[in-house]
């Protein structure tokens, strides 16, 4: 079994309109112009894993109120096993308004969801018994209000007590604290704040320092996004993973495809950090070049594999910042 954790899922509601006119009533008459899907980083990776053919993929987390029942039904459609703690409060709804002419993209991100201390106790118990059969565990995404920042630290501790390793995809203070438990792989996301571990990410060396600091703080391996590339921090060496000859169409889903494919590689071939990242990069590239946000199968990844390059990065930060790895490259 593969387990993914999503503590702060959302119902994503996308509305496609001809023109996003503010202060006007607009009417949507066609079903294809409204898309309602379950959202959450860990969950989307779980769906990708199902698409890659894994029979037993579980998503653990909170869902809230009556919308939680609706959310769970939507997740079931993908064949993902749900293990949800229901809360009194209603869960989040993210609204996306996508205008066609002119092309606009308005996103209302709902951060109102709150869970209570009792819900957290139930989660910890459920998580412990939920992972007994898990071979791989991914903890991903933000945490709802009401939860202490040490929640990921606690979950990783439980995993380690059960002899299981963790892949962490997180941000902010919950990530900082989780590092104390030394997760095996850490892939931070911070595009929304451009800052992580108190390092402002502007130049190449900032990103490089982020990776080094993640490892200093406890991450065994780290994957740091660097524009459309990835800096890969293995135990002793650092690599830069780059796509070539690509035509970006849709970033949405690329990150989740990356993480799912990483698991897919590790599950089938064992833990080869560099090769797993290369394969994951090909998966992200294949999604970024298509409209669909989920992977359709391994053939799609294999097709893109040749366009992923990995080169070792020497630890001369100044040289890289000024010459080779210009931010706009």
């Amino acid at each position: 079994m593969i387990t993914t954790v999503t503590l702060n899922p959302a119902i994503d509601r996308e509305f496609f309109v001809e023109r996003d006119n503010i202060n006007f009533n607009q009417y949507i008459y066609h079903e294809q112009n409204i898309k309602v899907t379950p959202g959450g980083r860990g969950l989307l990776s779980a769906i990708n894993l199902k698409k890659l053919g894994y029979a037993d993929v579980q998503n653990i987390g909170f869902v809230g109120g009556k919308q939680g029942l609706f959310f769970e039904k939507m997740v079931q459609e993908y064949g993902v096993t749900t293990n949800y703690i229901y809360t009194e409060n209603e869960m989040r709804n993210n609204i996306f308004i996508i205008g066609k002419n002119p092309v606009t993209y308005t996103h209302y991100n709902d951060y109102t969801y709150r869970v209570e201390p009792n819900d957290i106790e139930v989660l910890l118990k459920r998580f412990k018994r939920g992972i007994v059969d898990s071979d791989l565990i991914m903890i991903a995404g933000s945490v709802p209000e009401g939860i202490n920042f040490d929640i990921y630290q606690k979950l990783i501790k439980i995993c380690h007590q059960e002899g299981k390793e963790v892949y962490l995809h997180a941000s902010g203070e919950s990530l900082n604290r989780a590092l104390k438990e030394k997760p095996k792989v850490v892939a931070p996301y911070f595009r929304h704040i451009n800052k992580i571990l108190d390092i402002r990410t502007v130049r190449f060396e900032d990103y490089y320092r982020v990776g080094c600091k993640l490892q200093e703080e406890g991450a065994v391996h780290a994957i740091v996004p660097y524009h459309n590339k990835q800096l890969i921090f293995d135990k002793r060496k650092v690599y830069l993973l780059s796509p070539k000859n690509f035509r970006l169409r849709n970033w949405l889903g690329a990150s989740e495809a990356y993480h799912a494919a990483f698991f897919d590689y590790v599950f089938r071939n064992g833990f080869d950090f560099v090769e797993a990242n290369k394969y994951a990069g090909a998966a992200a590239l294949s999604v970024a070049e298509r409209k669909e946000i989920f992977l359709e199968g391994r053939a799609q990844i294999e097709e893109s594999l040749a366009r992923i390059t990995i080169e070792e990065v020497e630890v001369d930060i100044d040289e890289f910042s000024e010459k080779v790895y210009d931010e706009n490259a």
Partner: protein
Amino acid sequence: MSLVKKYMMRTLNSVCANETVDQVIRIMYKIEASVLPIVDEDNRFLGTIYSENLLKNILPEQYGVIEMHKLLYEVNHAAQNLQEIKKRKIKEYMSPTTTAVQETDSMDNVAEIMLENEESRLYVVNHEEKLRGYISRADLLCYLLEMEEAEK
């Protein structure tokens, strides 16, 4: 042949045998379910808790035969009784495992078991008896409907 895995709800919503009656009631309320599976620390299926089992234990008369003129009295009495038992372990009220099915079982098998036992839900377990989800009466009816339509 239609298999259980096509119709089942893949959910691990469950409680442990040592959880208390009030905790279980709250979970039932939130997920709108009057029946929950009980598992051990390794997610192994142990049995089922029905809301009916709890009601039987708090209503002063047998469930279903409350007389209307005594209703208010009975309800107050039931609430008092519930206060007394709410911190007890749910295992005291559970129905031990009877029948569970596996994902690869046929839906015909499910139909037989459900109709014979009058179960509202049949839990689905793997080869180690660990919980994987459930099949409801609605799932069974859906299967029967599809079977009938396919025959036509």
